[in-house]
């Protein structure tokens, strides 16, 4: 693997125009990745989902170099019924940026190299991403500007590619009192690739981020998404993850509540069938006083599926008056389904209110009986209960337009 990585790394460097300093930094990331490799079961964070194994058994000869030939953007892919700004990635290459609803001096996208901000992380996939991405884009929302329409980031793969490692990196700066809504929307026509997405958000004072991730299309790629969010005083980050389509996906969200009165929300849904293997891992770090976090994750698990939720709340000793809450629930519909949870609390301050709960089991037979006694058949009763179970999470979404979009995608009824 090392040889392949080094040759592919060289190809990437040769085909891009990085400065010497940038190349040195990238090499540092590469060496770190080579040292640690793909995480496997032995790594506590990957205990429930063995990426190393998944890559080995699904992808032959993973290729890290991507020629990045331009592709046509087919307007048919765009989401209907919602006015939005567009950023389109095809096979890891940015093909279209359309921010027509915004004032161009208030909302910018720049091609800019981020130096070493993530070098101290302990996540080898972030290292891989930082070493191999050939472009960085930084999206900047200027102070006191509210982005008018949501930005949908389309991430497409075409049937042309296979056994490739695709790395996407975006940075977001939300300046004082700004607001941004983004939707991650992936459409995959390819198979057996490893997609590795890293977003880094910086929220300044009073900024509001709404971050929605929709993984809805059936595909056989292996995906990893890592979002790091730094929050300053009184800023808010709302995250929602819809985990449906991919055969193997892990979403990771790391929130650092650095400023007083900042808050973070993570809500997620797994609705799985057919051998799917999904995970959400969150770590919410309460680093200052009066910070708040709320997490709700629900799973519905069909035949041969596996979902895992690892949620950690960390409270530093000076983060008094922290309010942290976390709840995960799962319904197992099949005897071959598996739900794993590791809700973790690590607390060093005493004046806090932190709790977590986790429950898993089958559909309540009494509820089914109740509904059936009112004239619905078994299938309808089951669907109605699951509908209500998941609707609970979708209702947490604060943006009405997007909430309706997601309800439509999932076919949820009110």
């Amino acid at each position, binding site marked *: 693997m090392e040889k392949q990585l080094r040759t592919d790394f060289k190809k990437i460097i040769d085909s891009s125009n990085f400065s010497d300093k940038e190349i040195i930094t990238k090499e540092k990331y590469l060496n770190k990745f080579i040292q640690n490799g793909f995480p496997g079961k032995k790594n506590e964070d990957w205990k429930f989902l063995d990426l190393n194994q998944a890559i080995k058994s699904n992808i032959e000869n993973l290729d890290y170099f991507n020629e990045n030939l331009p592709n046509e953007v087919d307007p048919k892919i765009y989401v209907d019924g919602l006015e939005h700004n567009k950023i389109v990635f095809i096979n890891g290459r940015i093909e279209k940026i359309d921010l027509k609803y915004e004032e161009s001096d208030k909302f910018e996208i720049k091609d800019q190299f981020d130096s070493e901000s993530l070098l101290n992380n302990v996540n080898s996939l972030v290292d891989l991403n930082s070493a191999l991405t050939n472009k960085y884009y930084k999206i900047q929302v200027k102070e006191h500007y509210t982005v008018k329409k949501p930005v949908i980031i389309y991430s497409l793969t075409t049937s042309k590619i296979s056994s490739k490692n695709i790395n996407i990196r975006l940075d977001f700066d939300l300046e004082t009192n700004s607001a941004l809504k983004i939707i991650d929307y992936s459409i995959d026509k390819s198979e057996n690739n490893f997609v590795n997405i890293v977003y880094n958000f910086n929220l300044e004072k009073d900024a509001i981020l709404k971050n929605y991730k929709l993984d809805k299309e059936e595909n056989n790629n292996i995906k990893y998404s890592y979002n790091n969010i730094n929050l300053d005083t009184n800023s808010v980050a709302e995250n929602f993850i819809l985990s449906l389509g991919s055969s193997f996906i892990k979403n990771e969200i790391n929130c650092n509540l650095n400023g007083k009165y900042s808050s973070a929300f993570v809500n997620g849904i797994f609705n799985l069938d057919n051998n799917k293997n999904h995970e959400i891992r969150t770590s919410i770090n309460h680093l200052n006083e009066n910070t708040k976090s709320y997490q709700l994750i629900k799973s519905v698990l069909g035949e041969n599926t596996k979902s895992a939720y690892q949620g950690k709340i960390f409270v530093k000793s000076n983060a008094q008056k922290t309010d942290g809450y976390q709840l995960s629930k799962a319904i*197992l519909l099949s005897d071959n389904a598996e*739900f794993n949870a590791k809700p973790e609390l690590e*607390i060093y301050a005493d004046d806090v209110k932190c*709790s977590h709960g986790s429950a898993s*089991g089958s559909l309540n037979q009494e509820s089914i009986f109740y509904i059936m006694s009112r004239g619905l058949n078994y299938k309808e009763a089951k669907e109605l209960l699951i509908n209500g179970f998941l609707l609970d999470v979708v209702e947490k979404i604060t943006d009405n337009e997007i909430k309706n979009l997601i309800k439509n995608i999932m076919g949820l009824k009110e």
Partner: protein
Amino acid sequence: MRDKQVQDLKEYKYGFSTDIDTIKAPKGLNEDVIKFISNIKKEPKWLLEWRLKAYNRLKVLKEPDWQKPKYPKIDYQDLYYYSAPKSFKEKPKSLDELDPKLLETYEKLGIPLQEQKRLNGIAVDAVFDSVSVATTFKDTLTKQGIIFCSISEAIQKHPELVKKYLGSVIPITDHYFATLNSAVFTDGSFVYVPPGVKCPMELSTYFRINASDTGQFERTLIIADKGSYVSYLEGCTAPMRDENQLHAANVELVALDDAEIKYSTVQNWYPGDKDGKGGIYNFVTKRGLCQGKNSKISWTQVETGSAITWKYPSCILKGDNSIGEFYSIAITNNHQKADTGTKMIHIGKNTKSKIISKGISAGYSDMTYRGLVDISKNAQNSSNYTQCDSLLMGNKCGAHTVPYIKNKNSDSNIAHEATTSKISEDQLHYCQQRGLNSEDAVGLIVNGFCKEVLQQLPMEFAVEAQKLVGISLEGSVG
């Protein structure tokens, strides 16, 4: 007057050491030492082979390092693996032959071994460093066919039972400390309750580490045959020493059809001084196997001592309809650290488990609840309920909760709840308004917080444990 009492209580009152001649195995861990231990205990050949097998495996094992409390590397070659009072070369036949100094030690600990003095009807097996010194109430128990003796004696007198069950729950292929224990275990208690017998009294073991530089590696094996019931309690203390001493015990419980074992621990090893110097490393492996149908194993623990407590009393619910329970209070103060919890492995159908864990940390201490609930594919209609609450006193300490929840059966339910909080000002104010001073108020609130667990203890020990809870937190408020 009260101040003086408090002062006395604050001190670790079991901190004295007994000056007694001992026989020790040569320092270090090697085959010869294992042979020495086996030889001095006149063990049969199969057991020596078993020990050596464990030792060979130990050589390739790595010490685990995933736990929260980190500790300096233990030099396993710098320990004595066997230490016994000299007068024990031949085990005394009765208490009259026992070294008076030993009797005195146990008097001081509040455990009078002389049977006539015992009125509350608890049979005691006392373990001093590496050997069991006395077992009381033997006659009454023998009449009912109950075997309660030291494991060394059981190896001699009931080899067929020991051979059948030793290592059946914690095999020699287990983790590092369990395997270490299998190689060098010295003594411990053995209990066998025959079919249909309800043990008429509480059985109790009292562990005492006395000699310095020794590790204590006791092994306890409890077998409850069909339809029997036994309640067992262990207590532990050690002298105050500046060094850290290792205690790596193995406890195996086997419950056959319809049997029930209740195992309670009041652990009060020396926790080290105020600055965290000295104290016991309590790295214990406790595991119960509900082998038969309708069997039940219940663990209750009150953990107040030790510099580091690292243990997960577990239940393997193999028999259909079996029940596992875990009730725990863990208190850490000053620089103590604890990483404790339980594992409930559901294998049989209709198995149920319940976990109630209460953690209290004060001072500079650090407490972790770590637990596993694993419902396997064939464990239809099983259920688990877990509640773990933590209480923090001050912002120099930590309280952590790390549950692992695995559900592979769609007919089974798992519910888990955890909270972390501090004693509310309102509660304190309410108590103080009614005339309690702040320490008494805290004591009262903490006792209320722990009530669910304290209720599970046998009556005599509940009172003691309640006091211990108060003492352990003395000086941590205000």
